[in-house]
């Protein structure tokens, strides 16, 4: 073994040893303080429960805290010598291999999806490396109107960018195994023609130079199968999203640097904005179905963690390129949309509970699984902890203090544990809030970064306000996530609803429906604790306040006007807002100007489905893009025949989205309907001459 190799294996081990030692010691220290409070008079079952919950939660907070601290020192000293980008021997002149840029989509806003791809394409063209990259729009869209819109937008992009043979589109007839199945379908059909694939999400944006650098890094490190970039949240204007963007940006850079510090080549995959070596992915990432039924069995939902674990199991390295900038994503615009996204992710992450103990996975892969589980399980555990604390406080208030024992006339004063309890609280709060302070300290080091965050005063004020906001929303998210976890544990499967990604305001009705229960919980718990455990009530006020104000906070934070006002005041600014990178400017331009090449896109008809039946061009394009399938059997033909008659009689309003999709999925039916609509135009529609 060479000296360099020895150093490589020793470095990660030492880092992890330090990291886990710190996490363990911190947890034990905090636990020791609590034990010292409880141990007098022995442990009651309630106290044992509190200790158990506190240990789990403290370990969870410790991991986060020490990760942030390691990230802080990494950024403070400027670089991590073990980072994959630092170990690069890349040459700018070396030819790049063919790389596929994949964008899996599912009923998304087509205009935004293609504007994003257009921006990435433009940015990539500026690097002079465009010819080495092919774009694949991998659609799993089921909505017939969105499907046709996607086809038109794709064709428009191909024509506008002269992208024939470089920009591809396909819609899967069946969306088997969802996103992982979508990617698998790509790999099986075309994967062998590419050395790398860069996986994006529908709202991903990546700078061209970043894409090129990712490919170069992979070329320099043949043992690496996956390189994840940290996607920075951008582009939203609502107050909620801008606060999250700010937090994700200013704290996120510290956390990702910290994660890289102790994970190095055993990092994780977050599902998008990552480059993957295709062959090992094909060899080792064919996902099985988990035994049993949903929610724990069936398809693996959060496939990314599992794919990273499978690659690690096969001996490949997985890295987080924490210092690679130019990787962006968009986040949900409102608190309710954020919770909806959580609902989708929650089931997938809880599934990982079964995988954490599966045979053959590496230790860190297991930890990634457990961290994924804890992202959601932490909420019910916190809730349980709060309830247990309240009950324990209530029990304490019921116990009469005895000052005189037996014949002893000297009073025995009750021992006060105020110092220990305050220390426990302070340790916990420090671990939660110190990373925010450290992130601010990092700004002192870098004047440009300080300016990008709006200056030291504005950044400090933003951190304070963000902290208040996160304190207010944390109890709401805790109840949301607890509800999701309970629903899943009761085997009530979570659906796969498409996200509402664009900025939009939360109405009172929507907020009341979503948060009515939270408000009521706040009132009931507040009254009960005030009357029965008044000392506990005052400790509990931050949680109660969050619940009581959930409706106005949810509504106000969804406001785009407030988000813009905060921006004007220099609050929650991020570097991407202060000085937008070119690729984000391109996206904005494409969304604003939006001048399609295809005339058919100049107008927005009420139904693209009907347009596929009536417009000769749309009809021809759609038909040409249908996959080669076997002719439908007799039963299927009868079914389609029935749908045609239904359409003739009732119009498109009488058909479900699935039925419409069935009609335009069959070539013969499509041609027949086209002729039918032209020979017998709709009576009242006025759509045909």
């Amino acid at each position, binding site marked *: 073994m060479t000296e360099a190799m020895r150093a490589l294996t020793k470095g990660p081990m030492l880092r992890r040893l330090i990291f886990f030692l710190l996490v363990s010691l911190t947890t034990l220290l905090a636990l020791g303080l609590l034990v010292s409070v409880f141990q007098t008079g022995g442990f009651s079952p309630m106290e044992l429960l509190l200790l158990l919950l506190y240990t789990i939660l403290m370990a969870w907070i410790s991991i986060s805290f020490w990760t942030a601290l390691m990230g802080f020192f990494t950024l403070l000293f400027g670089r991590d010598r073990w980072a994959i980008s630092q170990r690069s021997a890349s040459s700018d002149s070396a030819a790049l291999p063919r790389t596929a840029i994949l964008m899996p989509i599912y009923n998304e806003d087509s205009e935004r999806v293609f504007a994003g791809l257009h921006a990435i394409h433009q940015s990539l063209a500026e690097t002079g490396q465009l010819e080495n990259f092919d774009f694949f729009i991998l659609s799993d869209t089921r909505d017939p109107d969105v499907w046709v819109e996607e086809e038109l937008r794709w064709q428009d992009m191909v024509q506008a960018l002269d992208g024939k043979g470089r920009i591809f589109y396909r819609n899967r007839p069946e969306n088997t195994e969802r996103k992982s199945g979508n990617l698998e379908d790509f790999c099986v059909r075309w994967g062998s023609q590419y050395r790398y694939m860069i996986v994006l999400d529908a709202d991903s944006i990546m700078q061209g130079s970043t894409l090129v650098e990712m490919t170069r890094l992979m070329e320099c490190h043949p043992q690496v199968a996956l390189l994840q970039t940290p996607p920075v949240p951008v582009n939203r204007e609502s107050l909620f999203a801008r606060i999250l963007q700010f937090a994700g940006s200013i704290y996120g850079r510290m956390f990702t640097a910290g994660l890289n510090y102790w994970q190095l080549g055993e990092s994780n995959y977050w599902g998008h904005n990552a480059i993957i070596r295709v062959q090992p992915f094909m060899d080792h990432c064919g996902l099985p179905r988990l035994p049993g039924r949903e929610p724990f069995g069936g398809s693996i939902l959060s496939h990314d963690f599992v794919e990273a674990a499978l690659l690690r199991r096969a001996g490949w390295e997985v890295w987080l390129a924490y210092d690679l900038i130019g990787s962006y994503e968009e986040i949900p615009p409102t608190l309710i949309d954020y919770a909806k996204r959580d609902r989708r992710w929650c089931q997938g992450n809880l599934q990982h509970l079964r995988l954490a103990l599966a045979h053959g996975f590496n230790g860190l892969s297991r930890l990634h699984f457990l961290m994924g589980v804890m992202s959601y399980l932490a909420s019910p555990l916190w809730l349980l902890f709060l309830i247990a604390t309240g009950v324990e406080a209530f029990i304490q208030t019921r116990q009469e203090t005895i000052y005189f024992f037996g014949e002893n006339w000297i009073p025995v004063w009750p021992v006060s544990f105020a110092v220990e309890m305050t220390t426990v609280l302070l340790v916990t709060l420090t671990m939660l809030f110190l990373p925010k302070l450290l992130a601010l300290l990092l700004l002192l080091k870098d004047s440009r970064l300080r300016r990008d965050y709006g200056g030291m005063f504005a950044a400090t004020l933003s951190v304070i306000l963000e902290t208040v906001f996160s304190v207010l929303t944390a109890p709401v998210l805790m109840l949301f996530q607890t509800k999701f976890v309970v629903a899943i544990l009761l085997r009530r499967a979570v659906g796969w609803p498409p996200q509402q990604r664009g900025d939009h305001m939360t109405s009172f009705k929507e907020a009341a429906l979503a948060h009515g229960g939270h408000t009521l919980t706040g009132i009931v718990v507040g009254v009960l604790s005030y009357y029965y455990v008044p000392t506990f009530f005052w400790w509990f006020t931050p949680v109660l306040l969050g619940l009581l104000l959930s409706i106005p906070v949810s509504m106000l934070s969804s406001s785009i006007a407030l988000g813009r006002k905060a921006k004007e005041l220099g609050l929650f600014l991020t570097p991407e807002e202060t000085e937008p990178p070119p690729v984000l400017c391109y996206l904005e331009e494409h969304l604003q100007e939006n001048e399609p090449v295809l005339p058919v896109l100049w107008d927005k008809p009420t139904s693209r489905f009907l347009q596929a039946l009536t417009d000769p061009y749309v009809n021809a394009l759609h038909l040409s893009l249908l996959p080669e399938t076997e002719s439908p059997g007799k039963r299927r033909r009868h079914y389609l025949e029935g749908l045609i008659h239904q359409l003739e009689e009732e119009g498109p*309003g009488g058909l479900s989205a699935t039925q419409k999709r069935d009609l335009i999925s069959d070539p013969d039916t499509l041609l027949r309907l086209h002729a039918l609509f032209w020979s017998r135009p709709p009576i009242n529609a006025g759509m045909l001459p």
Partner: protein
Amino acid sequence: MDRAQVNTGEHYLAPLTPAPSHDALLGRLGAYWRALGVSDPKQIAALSEQALRRLPDHAESTDLLTAALLAARELLDDWLARTLDLPRQPRVLAAARAALLNGTIPNWPAVLFTPPDDAARDVADDLRVALAEAVPASVPGAMPTQRIELFSLLHPLHRGSRQDASSSSGMSHS
């Protein structure tokens, strides 16, 4: 589906005309040719007549108006297949039709009426360039399903006996 929104009083599409007049047929065909981008009335008339001459091929299977429109599309497809030397497959011909109608060759109807010459060949070349290529040629590869052995307290006892049974599914819950 909201059935209340469905108009049950009259059909959505116009009622079937059992024996449409020649003028009615020409009228519908004319509208269709115009939608395809043919604006010259003489060309429309000539194309419509050609389509009507093909009617006996279709008239038995469907109503006359629909048959006339199918014949019009077939007329166009024939020309495209000849000009571009394409196989007569619905998707291939649809791709050619889409290329013709996407606006890249604005004067295409004129070429229909000219004998094969350089101009027609140029149009054919332009059409080939404009043909959509949705996906590259497939080069099938394999992505074998991985085996994941889930944890069980009885694992050591069952490991041997389960190996055979679970090898086909790729997933073992031992």
